[in-house]
């Protein structure tokens, strides 16, 4: 139900990145959306298409990678993927396994159409020196 706010945040982030790299036209925005996050990919795509209609982002495709829920048992260390919320470890039965993946909600990358508009080869400033 809050997909419109999420879509607006995506547009804000992408515009910042486009300005940073001096990119004029985008092809694809790659997102990671965890299964545990309260976001429905179909709704998000719809809200995004409404927001970018008749703007410079029109035609940009939203590519959503759904991240399954991955748990790790805090007793026996067993790691497992689950379709539904896991309340106990399937290996040893210990309650409350820790959710390691499935809460993701991030812009992972953008794909630029025009090679002339490609970013400089250097990494973003904050990554330098790491």
């Amino acid at each position, binding site marked *: 139900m809050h997909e419109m706010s999420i879509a607006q945040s995506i547009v804000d982030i992408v515009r910042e990145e486009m300005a940073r790299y001096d990119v004029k036209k985008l092809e694809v925005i790659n997102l990671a959306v965890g299964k545990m996050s*309260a976001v429905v990919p179909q709704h998000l795509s719809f809200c995004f298409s409404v927001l970018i209609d008749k703007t410079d982002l029109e035609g940009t495709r939203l590519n959503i990678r759904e991240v399954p829920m991955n748990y790790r048992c805090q007793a026996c260390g067993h790691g497992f993927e689950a379709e539904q919320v896991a309340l106990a470890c399937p290996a040893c039965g210990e309650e409350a396994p820790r959710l390691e993946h499935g809460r993701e909600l991030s812009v992972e990358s953008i*794909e630029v159409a025009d090679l002339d508009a490609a970013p400089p080869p250097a990494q973003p400033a904050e990554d330098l020196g790491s």
Partner: protein
Amino acid sequence: MLKVSVVRNILEINDRIAGQNRELFSANRVLVLNLMSSPGAGKTTLLERTVERLKDKYRIGVIEGDITSSYDAERIAQKGVQAVQINTDGACHLDSNMVREALGEFDLGALDLLVVENVGNLVCPAEFNVGEDMKIMILSVPEGDDKPLKYPLMFQESRVLIVNKIDLLPYVDFNLKRMREVTTGLNPTQVVFEVSCRTGEGLEAWLNWLEARIKERRAAP
């Protein structure tokens, strides 16, 4: 085609403002609760009972989030504490920026407890921090004991679960034990209170717990 790595959390802007709110709360040693539930579970009624009992000992402020209307803020203001209404105009949750704007109405230094009553919704508010010390959620008995499995994020994020309307337990198929099995699996350290805001049953334990948290907050360096 050229791929540019970005890796930015979509909620980072909300989280950044929430962090600023949190610093403000911390500097003023005010305990801030983000109160969430589905519509009609009893958020405003719990607040009325809480304010009635604690307002003579502590200085309390309330932010009321609703899609429209100022009915809830008026209910709380009648209890003699400051209540500020936020109308989200259709949005299904409060975000940190809306709360920041409402904070301008308060003298935070003159408050011990600030309660942010979120928009009635078991889904969206769980994703948006507003700078609170803790999330408190209410599940009312008529909603059914299957809700933790259907809305796991809210139950995972909430430090406290208040099960309200327990006076209705004899009339509905709500199995407290079954619900607790699920909530323990989702959130083993969650504090649970079983109450009826209508009869007052169980409220004492909640109020004592909350009072201890307010004192802790005042004493924190």
